[in-house]
């Protein structure tokens, strides 16, 4: 049963000049208690797209106002990660890198990984941060974690520019495979949003979720082919490995941009499937718990 539906009702209204009747379209909101699962109400979110834009814009602006190295942080984070990996994994441990220079290998993975890691971390606490607004105004709450994830796009673009620079430096040109790039970016967003929705909803009720996230992300990084290629994994295990949706995202991103040998196959298919599952389940769980956010946050 729906909590509130916006229907359009035609209401007869007396027009001016006596006798004329004009029908005006009036939105009706029906407020009822909800039980069980609630629908996703995507139309509601679409109606509030401008708010999503403003919240994202606000997150971005605030992140960089009054910071000295503000924009540089977007590049520093993946860069420093890449440096550490290059020294220890690429240098010390001599991890293979699919026939492209290791720094480029690691950095490309870190760029897309940073989008996921930051997105998930910001999203997990986003509802609590926005608590005051949530208690005072109505809007579809999903907009809040969505905006915290979307605001990571600016960081991504900045880091991406450096990535292009590195490609030029190493003389690696993109092939026609680059047409697949937007698809893998979309997959990254789907994965980040799926996990983000789950974590943000859970965090409202269990405030310690937010503290578990950094550990979760750290462990996840090691389980994802950022510092090492997935080609290290043999045969059937590769499919199991694909259950980590970020495995598909990172490998696919690298493959489309840098043209590495590792062709996408069953692993990426499994990753994509898991990502979509996470998004759908996350969205439904979010909607189910959304009704008590204003009371509990």
């Amino acid at each position, binding site marked *: 049963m729906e909590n509130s539906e916006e229907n359009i009702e035609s209401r007869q209204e007396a027009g001016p000049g006596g006798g004329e009747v004009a029908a005006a379209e*009036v939105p009706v909101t029906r*407020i009822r208690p909800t039980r069980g699962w609630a629908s996703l109400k995507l139309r509601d979110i679409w109606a509030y797209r401008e708010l999503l834009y403003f919240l994202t814009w606000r997150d971005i602006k605030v992140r960089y106002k*009054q910071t000295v190295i503000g924009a540089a942080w977007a590049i520093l984070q993946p860069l420093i990660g890449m440096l550490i990996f290059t020294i220890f994994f690429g240098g010390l441990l001599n991890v293979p890198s699919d026939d492209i220079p290791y720094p480029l290998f690691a950095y490309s993975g870190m760029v897309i990984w940073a989008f996921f890691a930051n997105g998930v971390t910001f999203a997990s606490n986003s509802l609590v941060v926005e608590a005051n607004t949530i208690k005072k105004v*109505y809007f579809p709450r999903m907009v809040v974690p969505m905006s915290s994830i979307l605001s990571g796009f600016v960081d991504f673009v900045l880091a991406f520019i450096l990535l292009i620079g590195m490609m030029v430096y190493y003389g690696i040109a993109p092939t026609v495979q680059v047409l697949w790039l937007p698809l893998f970016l979309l997959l990254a967003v789907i994965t980040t949003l799926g996990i983000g929705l789950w974590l943000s909803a859970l965090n409202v009720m269990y405030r310690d979720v937010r503290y578990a996230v950094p550990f979760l992300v750290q462990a996840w990084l090691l389980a994802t082919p950022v510092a090492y290629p997935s080609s290290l994994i043999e045969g059937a295990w590769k499919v199991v490995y694909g259950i980590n949706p970020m495995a598909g995202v990172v490998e696919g991103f690298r493959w489309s941009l840098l043209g590495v040998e590792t062709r996408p196959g069953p692993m990426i298919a499994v990753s994509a499937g898991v990502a979509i599952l996470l998004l759908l389940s996350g969205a439904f769980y979010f909607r189910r718990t959304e009704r*008590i956010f*204003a009371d509990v946050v």
Partner: protein
Amino acid sequence: MNDMAIKVENLGKQYRIGGQQARYKTLRDTIADGFKSPFRRMSRLVHGEAYAGADLHESIWALKDVSFEVRQGEVLGIIGRNGAGKTTLLKVLSRITEPTEGAADVWGRVGSLLEVGVGFHPELTGRENVYLNGAILGMRKAEIDRKYDEIVIFAGVKRFIDTPMKHYSSGMQVRLAFAIAAYLEPEVLLIDEVLAVGDIGFQRKCFNKMDEVAYGGRTVIFVSHNMEAVRSLCSRGIWLEDGRITYEGDISSAIKMYLESYSSMEAKVNIAEEDHVVDSGLLRINKVFILDSEGRVTSRIHYREDFSVGMELEMLGKVESARIGLGVNTPGGQRISTAHHTDAGVAALSGSSGKYRATASFKNRLMPGLYIISVGAHEGLSGKGLDYVPGAVDLSVLGSSKEGEGPDPANQGLVEMSIDWTEVEKL
């Protein structure tokens, strides 16, 4: 022709609150619980149950059996003490929180002002915050563009509009916040006590703007503690008490009843000389007070809570067979019931001096509302009036019992008589 703007039926909202542990737990119980509870919590969590994280055992009904209608263009005032449920009602109508039971329908776009400046960020400039706050309140960008200049002029912050808000004085912030809110133009507007902002000059400006809004054909629900504002802006009023509607009617009556419920803050009333309408000089009732079921002096009694009325009187001269009486009246002066202390066989009072106390215990059958108690005494044999104080003390019967239950909304009236229905037989 449907000109309904808001229709609320039996709305109820229950909140969980922390309570005391019910029983003493053994250590074994505590350990067993310690093992079981993470699983129980996990299962509740997976089922998406609220409050899974907190140990909230008790619950209260912030709203119960609330029903009313608002026509298009009406301005309805909602008054009541803090904690009566006014803000909760607005939150439910604004879809911020869900009702636990009942239904509400709203025709038209809803704009709700529960707080001004929602979403304001100190790092952003005034201009940026206007757009942000406007978007949060539900305005489209095009709409904000259109009204931007007027908003800034109304707030009087044009010079500082491009400075980060953290440099604004609190007065400036609040003026800008209110200015944005004032230009919100939905069909239905829900306002929660946001008029008390800024200095007197600005308050007046806000008030005039609200007036404009109210008479502009918009439907408004206005919650406030400012009785003057409520009286002048609203045509109808609802007095909410403990989550229930205690009174619904024209705004002046609602305000009067609400205020009168406060009037006997000094519940133990010393009767002034001039209040004795009949004063024989032989017997004088000096004090009247109301005691609740726990013997505390009060002027507010729960529905169905038994209470007693105590009187302290003094005999100043020779009195023979005096009967002390009291009467329960409506605020309009209608006598509901009268009783004398001799009704059940207690001896009449005779004497020539001394102080006395009389106590009358009530089995409370009064419906929620405001009542006025009159006291007096007369000589039983001659009928001569000894003392009479009409309106000695006010009694407020609250909308719900101590257990939180209220009367059946279908049973209107002043009192609940003891009525037994026989079975409904087919003829």
